[in-house]
């Protein structure tokens, strides 16, 4: 068969959502992925590994294969019986699928949460309090002369971030690496830190203190200690000077900041620092979102319900109280009586108490691959990969929206998340109608 190459392919791995990939397909197989980073090529060339091909239902003797129709019927009946089902995942699927998911949660009067609650959720809590100064990544490419990575290691987690959007990119007003200063603040000397002009090694779990000290220095306040978070005050003042004197600065942070002690308070401090800097110069801040559509999950849920994650529909209207209505907390308190997981692997990632509760209730999983979560499930529905086997809309970490492409056909009979979720919703409504 002839080879076919598609250009401008949107990658569906991390929040960078690079869209300059050239993918070559032969005999419905991806044989080459040009411009892709290591993470991206490994997904594009290896997406068929450990695939689920057939819906399965757990019986007395373990899993047995079944039809989609049967699996969807059992799922809908399970959800219809539930008083408070939990719908979880959503960051590795399309906005179209998430929209159906929200309606399912509303229809069943359950809870819906996305992976934000175990990831950059504290950032959102910070934004509720402070707001944020942000921009699209192109603004940083064109204008930034200072770029800070805080608790973030893009060399491994967002491999093309620096070359496409920040220090090594070529913009209208900044043409090369030498015109930008790169600062890395981390608890260890990461591979990203090795590339920095300035690396500041800080003590773990002292982000709040260091951010507050930096903010004080930016304000011109005197800091009485000799050092904060293991960093000398001279060094802090030097950093503050660089930040104040730049023309356009950008602060990117990873889970090193978000999930360290202090969590949303760290983000309060970081957002406040950047806000403060805007009275002296131009400065922006952005989380290094991990999954390719976690930002989309936040956006879809926000426009449909007003809130970005941890949604509670049990009272007939959207309620939001992370810490109470977020997945881990609900499960730890054993409040849900069934769960539908879409494109996520909470059994591997959740704290033990939450994971074991999840495994103990009726669990349905929609996923392209075999994962610990599918292994613990009662019903498993295989799905097509968004951006490879089916299209759909996704949101880059800066909110730029991209339309992914279908590059190859999914394995025979395998359906997309949208098809599966819509069928469950239809079946659920008809069960309800018939009483």
């Amino acid at each position, binding site marked *: 068969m002839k080879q076919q190459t598609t*250009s*401008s392919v*949107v990658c569906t791995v991390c929040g960078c959502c690079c*869209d*300059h990939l050239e993918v070559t397909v032969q005999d419905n197989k991806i044989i080459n992925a040009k411009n892709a980073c290591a993470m991206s090529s490994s997904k594009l060339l290896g997406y068929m590994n450990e695939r689920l091909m057939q819906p399965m239902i757990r019986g007395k003797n373990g899993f047995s294969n079944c039809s989609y129709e049967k699996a969807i019927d059992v799922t809908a009946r399970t959800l219809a019986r539930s008083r408070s089902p939990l719908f979880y995942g959503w960051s590795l699927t399309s*906005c179209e699928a998430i*929209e159906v998911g929200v*309606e399912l949660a*509303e229809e069943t009067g359950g809870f819906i949460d996305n992976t934000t609650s175990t990831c950059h959720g504290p950032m*959102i809590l910070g*934004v*509720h*309090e*402070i*707001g*944020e*100064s*942000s*921009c*699209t990544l*192109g*603004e940083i*490419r*064109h*204008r930034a002369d200072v770029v800070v990575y805080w608790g973030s290691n893009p060399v491994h987690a967002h491999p093309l971030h620096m070359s*496409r*959007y920040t220090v090594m990119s070529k913009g*209208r*007003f900044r043409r090369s690496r030498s015109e930008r200063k790169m600062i890395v603040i981390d608890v260890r000397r990461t591979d990203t830190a090795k590339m920095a002009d300035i690396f500041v090694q800080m003590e773990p779990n002292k982000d709040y203190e260091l951010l507050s000290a930096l903010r004080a220095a930016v304000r011109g306040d005197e800091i009485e200690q000799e050092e904060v978070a293991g960093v000398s005050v001279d060094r802090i003042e030097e950093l503050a000077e660089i930040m104040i004197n730049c*023309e*356009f600065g950008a602060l990117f942070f990873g889970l090193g900041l978000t999930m360290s002690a202090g969590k949303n308070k760290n983000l309060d401090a970081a957002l406040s620092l950047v*806000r403060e800097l*805007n*009275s002296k*110069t*131009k400065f*922006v801040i952005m989380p290094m979102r991990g999954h390719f559509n976690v930002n989309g999950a*936040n*956006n*879809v849920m*926000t*426009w*449909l*319900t*007003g*809130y*970005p994650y941890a949604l509670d*529909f049990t*009272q*007939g*209207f*959207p309620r*939001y109280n992370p810490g109470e209505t977020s997945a881990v907390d609900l499960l730890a308190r054993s409040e849900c009586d069934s769960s539908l997981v879409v494109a996520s692997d909470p059994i591997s990632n959740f704290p033990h108490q939450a994971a074991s509760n999840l495994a103990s209730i009726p669990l349905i999983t929609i996923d392209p691959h075999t994962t610990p979560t599918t292994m613990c499930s009662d019903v498993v529905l295989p799905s097509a990969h968004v951006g490879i086997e089916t299209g759909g*809309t996704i*949101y880059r970490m800066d*909110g*730029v*929206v*991209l*339309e992914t492409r279908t590059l190859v056909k999914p394995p025979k009979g395998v359906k997309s998340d949208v098809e599966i979720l819509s069928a469950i919703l239809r079946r659920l409504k008809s069960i309800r109608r018939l009483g």
Partner: protein
Amino acid sequence: MTTELAIVNGTVFDPLNQTGGEKQDIFIRDGKIVNSVRRKARTINASGMVVMPGGVDIHSHIAGSKVNSGRLLRPEDHRKDVEPRTKHTLSGVGHSVPSTRTTGYRYTRMGYTTVFEPATPPLKTRHTHEELNATPIIDKACFPLLGNNWFVMEYLRDGKIEECAAYVAWMLKATKGYAIKIVDPGGVEVWGWGKFLRGLDDTVAHFDITPREIVRGLCKVNKILNLPHPIHVHTNNLGNPGNYLTTIETMDAVRDLDDGKKPIIHITHVQFTGFSGSSWLNLGSGAPEIADYINKHGHVSVDLGQVIFGDTTTMTADGPFQYFLHKLSGNKWVNVDVEAETGSGIVPFQYKRGNYVNAIQWGIGLELALLVKDPWRVFMTTDHPNGGPFTAYPKVIAWLMSSKAREKTMSKINRTAKKRLDLPGIDREYTLEEISTVTRAAPAKSLGLTNKGHLGVGADADVAIYDLDPSKRDLEQNPIAIRRAFKEAAYTIKDGMIMSKKGQITGTRLGRTFYVESTISSELESNLLKEINSKFKDYYTIEIDNYPIAESFLHNPSKISCKAEV
């Protein structure tokens, strides 16, 4: 299956068809107004009620990235205002920034059937369309922001007006947009560096162009492309004392381009750019001067941006203004700049009756509405949610129709402000016909929506019936009845289907999304594509192939075609 509907015995206010309060029956078949229907058609008895075309909102921020950032910023706005699920509706929340479905339902309840989102960053317009797709019942459209666009500024700087027109045509097609929106021309680009631009003749750093040249250039482009709506302008200097002069200067900057046919520039939320005085201490209303200019010049139309006292969320593409408001109020602040195109900012805000500045702002909006003589060129808006949420429209209607209502509010506002306003001396009261003009007929005409804003044969059967008896004398003495009637339409009919009854949503459907396509010559288009292609990679962080939005992305697209002169 044909569906028919007759609305009988109502008092009809259909200014585009010169019907101003006559008893007239309205007939509907398959979503359109017709001459007659069969006798067994479903009949609504509108005796003792007012019948108007469905409301048309020309400027309301209901969808897109900045609206969603506003929702995300304000959980406290949502908790106090929830809409539980009903038989026909899905749930939602939000007082000043409601979720999409709630937006659709609330407009429908008020008898509004068409709403235009006036500011979408082109690069993020896919997001805007996703939200418009998720906004039920009402028809809608969006205006892409072009006043700080790099391509536009460069073409205009180089005097390439035809090329600029071709680019704008491409942009409208690529984003499925409706009209040219200009926000703080040049000022948002400068804000990319955290700097401010003030006057119409200041130079935009790195681009060697002035706001005046941008406005004039895009006004010419608008004409070349024969677009249905004129350039929609949010002027420079918004929110600064003395800015009414900038507003008049901006209107006057395109006066010589007037061809006498219809307005060629629309100045939006003119209240925010109607400040006289030189500081917050001597702030006054520039409305009399602006109204005087509009009364003498036919090339301008405006909408109000009326202030409503209470809590709201301000959001504009005017990033520098929002930063200024953040510093002024100390409230939380979101800023999002968009590469090569525009920016945006969001700040929650509370308009207080006792606050001198806020009271003056309240007065400016109403003075404008009452001093501009031609109701076809002044449209009622609150610039939702900037002046206040759209759900406050019934209040504004009551103020316009009843000086008693105005006096009541005036008795509670800041006393110094009251003394300095002309408003107490203005006794004009809008008639129901004028209300029908400023809330539906005139905005529909300005938008070039030939099937909207009227009830003539062939029009879309979008009808609002209000439980208000116009035969009763002294309507203006009863502002509470006016408010009550316009708050919840007795019936809202969309495309011939009853969508709400006495404020209860009775059904749901997908409204249309309008967009405009202006055809340019194929030679100009191919040259343009070469040029955009050569620069796109330098300007943007996405590939050009991933930029245009396909028509299929819109759930119910409706194209309006026009032919360019180039």
